[in-house]
């Protein structure tokens, strides 16, 4: 049974990889261009006018945030669009009629989200090397935060895809929730520089912990408790995974 599930998983994962690389002009190139522009405009043009933050120049400070931003948006975008188009074309039925367990199906789609999120993250990291020399303070932390954040946002995208009934539904959450949370999550500034009220409010934003922990992995500086960030990511991973399984078991959005 384990072997059968493994084959099912690799089949879904393979399909997702083929999709990501078949439409690479949609999946891999645009985020790299967007983030490169951020590096040029904020890092180079504006950043050169600003002083250091915690001992690092502005470009080095924003680099981990920009990499994390690309991981978040691309992990989410991949699962939500792939799962919704699978529903839209009704080829989700290929999986539903098969004996593939729901947890295998979830992991298969997550593998796609993580592949795209981490691929784009790697490409953005390579682009950042054109502008700065990025230190790596703590490799395990960096990898762990990247993997868990990608996992969590791939799950969130999948849940969005499960509920989505029309194309509008797959852009509402990214536009009105994820983008504001990411931009206000400390990509471009340290929350320690904010007035008390905004600093306290920012601590309710989970993205602050993801970016904070990831930045710690690179630079060794942080404005949050990285262990709390790690714990929160683990908790989100488990809770969102269970929610996804529950929705699929109920047949939400996929069975009548």
């Amino acid at each position, binding site marked *: 049974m384990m072997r059968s599930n493994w084959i099912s998983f690799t089949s879904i994962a393979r*399909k997702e990889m083929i999709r990501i690389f078949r439409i690479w002009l949609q999946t891999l190139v645009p985020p790299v261009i967007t983030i490169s522009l951020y590096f040029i405009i904020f890092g180079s043009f504006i950043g050169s006018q600003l002083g250091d933050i915690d001992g690092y120049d502005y470009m080095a400070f924003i680099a981990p945030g920009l990499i994390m931003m690309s991981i978040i948006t691309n992990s989410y975008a991949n699962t939500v669009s792939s799962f919704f188009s699978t529903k839209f074309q009704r080829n989700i*039925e290929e999986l539903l009629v098969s004996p593939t367990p729901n947890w295998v199906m979830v992991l298969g789609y997550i593998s796609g989200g993580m592949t795209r999120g981490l691929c784009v993250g790697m490409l953005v990291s390579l682009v950042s090397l054109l502008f700065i020399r990025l230190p790596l303070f703590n490799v395990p932390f960096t990898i762990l935060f990247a993997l868990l954040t990608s996992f969590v946002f791939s799950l969130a995208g999948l849940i969005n895809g499960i509920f989505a009934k029309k194309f509008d539904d797959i852009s509402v959450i990214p536009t009105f929730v994820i983008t504001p949370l990411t931009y206000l999550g400390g990509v471009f500034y340290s929350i320690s520089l904010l007035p008390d009220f905004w600093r306290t409010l920012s601590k309710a934003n989970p993205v602050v912990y993801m970016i904070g922990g990831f930045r710690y992995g690179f630079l060794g500086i942080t404005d949050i408790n990285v262990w709390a960030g790690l714990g929160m990511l683990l908790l989100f991973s488990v809770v969102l995974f269970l929610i996804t399984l529950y929705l699929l078991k109920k047949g939400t959005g996929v069975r009548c």
Partner: protein
Amino acid sequence: MLALSIQNLQKKYQGGFQALSGVTFDVQEGDFFGLLGPNGAGKTTTIGIITSLVTKTGGKVRVFGIDIDDDFPAAKRLIGVVPQEANFSIFEKVQDIVTQQAGYYGIPRREALVRSEKYLKKLGLWEKRHVPAQQLSGGMKRRLMIARGLVHEPKLLILDEPTAGVDVEMRRGMWDFLVELNRQGRTIILTTHYLEEAEQLCNQIAIITRGEIVENTSKRELLRKLNKETFFFDTKNPVSAVMPLENTEFSFMDDGTLVVTKNKSQSMNRILAHLDQQGIVVDSMRNKANRLEELFMEMVE
């Protein structure tokens, strides 16, 4: 052994529509079983429940003795399904669609490639294996779905209106293929509203209408129940009127074609003698293409 046993199957959709109200029927292993009914009768809902695309609200389904409530994955391994409308990704390549489906059933990739080649060749799609599915014609898309439904070599193959919108030549080819599959021992369930198709292929027939089974018997038995039968008589000379005859109705399709509907009790000799008396010469005679249609109309109305 029973390939499929359905007892008191119920489905009420969220809006309150009762699609199935206690559907019960059995399919013996090796049968070529036809599930007939008009559009909206509950055929696709029934298949949806058997294949897990629709959640039942009551009743029992057993596939080769396995209750789907106890072990649906085990039951699913025994079922192959060919849906009514194309439900593959149109951007994926033909062979990828088939091998992926094999993967979902736990078939290793090497074996999946061998099997996909076997079925794509059988269905005349091997030359198209590297083509994205959107480039296939309607008939090819249907054959692709049959190859996909067979790749895990199910004991029970369910086809939902497999020849709807397919041209006559291709339909005949598909029939031959399905008959061959059935001869090899595979149980086949076919839904159709082409009664000619059911008459040609199926040995067992159930008729469903408004979510209920109104008939379930062998084709032979069903045809025996046929009280009326219609024939077309091609006459030598134009005919515009025929004297009435008991247990027989005459109508005209055109000047040279007389439509004769006779009750079972009426003999053909009597009809021919009756026409002969009036100087009407019958050149040739043919049976209306599908006799089941008359019975079907009687049952669903």
